[in-house]
């Protein structure tokens, strides 16, 4: 049987091919896929530890001219619902995060024609001046490419200037599916596969780490998804710059794309297992509780996932498309423990920096838009987190 041949390769530690991934895709045997994915997961991470990061999402603008068909978040720049947060508003959000002990911001937004590099330089400098230990994980590939274009700078120059202003790592958002025919169908005005990979390559060459993502379940085929994984794997062979991979299913509400069927939790588990087996050179695989909910996200820990992502405090993009699961750090820890793993806090480089047992919810989750969440922990913990993060920064600089 074809699957047995693939299984032998997995147990022997051999790299899987496109055809191997198609053979895995033909199997419905969930416990078997889980077993294979766990073989790789425990080879990379022998301990039963699952990490997450105390981090906040900040979406500085929703103004965007790109009109991706899968997106319910954007507003055209002249729309009356278009917004751009002031530096003051953004700093207030960072302050909230820091007040409850957070140390990382994921800052992303639309492609807003009014925001050139000086906007971002001044924003990042202000954030770092007021909160020197906060890690800026931000501006996705599409944003960096666009800032370069409207600021008439090379990609490399743009990255160097943004980094000098305080942007430390690049989120993998916007990877969607790295196959041009799919990108043309769902996001005709956005960067193409080689542009996305090219920017990531430049960033990695400059010593900036990044994640990679996949959004599946729109118009692509299983073959496209596997090609996506192989493109990421090839670049990782070259640069080693990807820290982690995350995959989430397309959420269609309020978007211009309405697929015939919605992706399921069952499909997500299989996708996670195949991803873990194919991406043998990307160390970490993230859960997607925002799209899958706590039950399937927890079960995915048996399908190759070793990281529970971030405590978001707010989530505006996926929730605009109708899905808004929310989890507190305490609930994340409980789910991890109940699956037989030990929860640990990490930084953006996936160094373990603390124990979430010392996190305490400081106020109840408030009803309303997106995820509301906040945490506190003791000063000692904060010191350790900061120390560990400076170390990572130092290593990056080296």
């Amino acid at each position, binding site marked *: 049987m074809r699957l047995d041949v693939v299984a032998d390769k997995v147990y022997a530690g051999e790299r899987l091919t496109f055809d191997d991934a198609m053979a895995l895709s033909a199997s419905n045997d*969930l416990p078997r896929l*889980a*077993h294979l994915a766990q073989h790789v997961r425990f080879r990379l991470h022998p301990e039963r530890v699952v990490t997450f990061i105390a981090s906040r999402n900040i979406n500085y603008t929703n103004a965007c001219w790109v009109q991706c068909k899968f997106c319910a978040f954007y507003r055209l720049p002249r729309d009356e619902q278009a917004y751009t947060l002031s530096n003051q508003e953004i700093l207030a959000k960072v302050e909230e995060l820091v007040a409850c002990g957070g140390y990382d911001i994921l800052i992303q937004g639309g492609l807003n024609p009014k925001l050139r590099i000086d906007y971002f330089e001044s924003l990042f400098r202000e954030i770092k001046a007021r909160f020197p230990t906060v890690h800026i994980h931000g501006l996705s590939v599409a944003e960096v490419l666009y800032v370069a274009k409207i600021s008439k700078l090379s990609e490399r120059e743009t990255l160097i200037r943004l980094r000098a202003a305080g942007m430390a790592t690049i989120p993998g958002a916007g990877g969607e599916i790295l196959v041009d025919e799919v990108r043309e169908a769902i996001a005709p005005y956005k960067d193409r596969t080689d542009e996305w990979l090219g920017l990531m390559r430049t960033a990695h060459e400059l010593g900036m780490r990044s994640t990679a993502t996949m959004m599946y379940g729109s118009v692509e085929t299983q073959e496209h998804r596997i090609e996506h994984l192989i493109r990421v794997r090839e670049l990782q062979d070259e640069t080693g710059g990807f820290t982690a991979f995350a995959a989430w299913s397309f959420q269609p509400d309020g978007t211009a794309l309405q697929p015939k069927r919605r992706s*399921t939790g069952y499909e997500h588990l299989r996708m996670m297992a195949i991803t873990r087996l194919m991406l043998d050179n990307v160390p970490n695989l993230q859960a997607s509780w925002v799209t899958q909910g706590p039950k399937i996200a927890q079960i995915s820990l048996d399908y190759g996932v070793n990281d529970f992502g971030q405590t978001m405090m707010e989530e505006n993009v996926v929730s605009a498309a109708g899905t808004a699961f929310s989890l507190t750090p305490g609930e994340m820890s409980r789910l991890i423990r109940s699956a*037989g793993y030990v929860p640990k806090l990490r930084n953006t480089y996936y160094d373990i920096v603390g124990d979430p047992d010392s996190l305490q919810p400081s106020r109840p989750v408030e009803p309303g838009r997106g995820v509301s969440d906040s945490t506190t922990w003791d000063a000692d913990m904060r010191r350790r987190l900061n120390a560990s993060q400076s170390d990572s920064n130092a290593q990056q600089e080296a």
Partner: protein
Amino acid sequence: MTDRSVPIRDMRLDAIRAKVLEGTRLSFDDGMLLYETDDLAGVGALANVVRERKNGNRAYWVRNQHINYTNVCNKFCKFCSFYAKPNGPQAYTMDMDTVRARVLDHIDHPITEIHIVGGIHPRLPFDYYLDLLRTVREARPAVHIKAFTMIELQQIQIVAGKPMKDVLVELVEAGLGSIPGGGVEVLSDRLHAELFDRKLDGVEWLETARTAHELGIRSNATMLYGHVERPEERVEHMVRLRELQDDTGGFLTFIPLSFHPENTELAHLPSPTGFDDLRNIAVGRLMLDNFDHVKSFWIMNTPAVTQVALWYGADDVDGTIHEYEITLDPESGKKQVLSRGQLLDMIREAGRDPVERDTLYNIVAED
């Protein structure tokens, strides 16, 4: 080399794997190990062996309607959000016109089963229950009526003032076809005292089931998990069900029920996790070797987990479920329902063959 057919990571499961492959009965200690191990995928793989041995690649579903005839109840179980106190503002009891209208509301759906359960209303006479069955049967003669948990049967017996056997015979004459599996919760004296002390105890529940089975009335058995029960109590529950099943063979399906703490006296407890849901199904499948079927009740477990559970021991997903009022959709507060198309898609995507069954697992259609 790893055994290809049934992969496990935790080698402590090796002896259980041998027993499962031979078809040997698992012990209480085996059940404890199945709850203790971190290797849920291994437990699932073992459960899948039994699942496929008994039911092949089939996944059963049913077109059904629920009627919850009253929410008045004098049992005040701590895990329940459904009951209303007698004369409370939200209390209701359906009269026969309402019952008939509910049945006729769905007369255009090709429903094969009507599932009738309610609270323990202290003032309803024996005739109410007989009328309820007759009304449903008159409105829809071809439908199978699965009605009254063992708890309700005990109440009916009290108001009827007759032996249980005679009560059951009269109920069958009025239209009763089989008995659902609810109300047993967990067969444990400790939990009975702590959570549902006004309700009949485990011995009485089992004796009522035995009486029904001896009259040829089939029933289901449930297990409510994720509150304050311990693993040893779950295993004990399964062993006691298995013993009665050895005697009578009357149980059709084992149905683990995922506790929903919202709006109950146990609201401070966290909800069961996806791991809990899959594990209780898988352990149930492995321990209850004399039950033909294990159901993942999608209303309690979510459709997403139910689809996955088809590979962790479950061979049944329940059904379309019109008019279920006991646990509402936590997001919308509305009744939940799945269409035939949604059920078929869910089963087929998981690589199983959907089979529409009636209550007694006669095949209605293989799609």
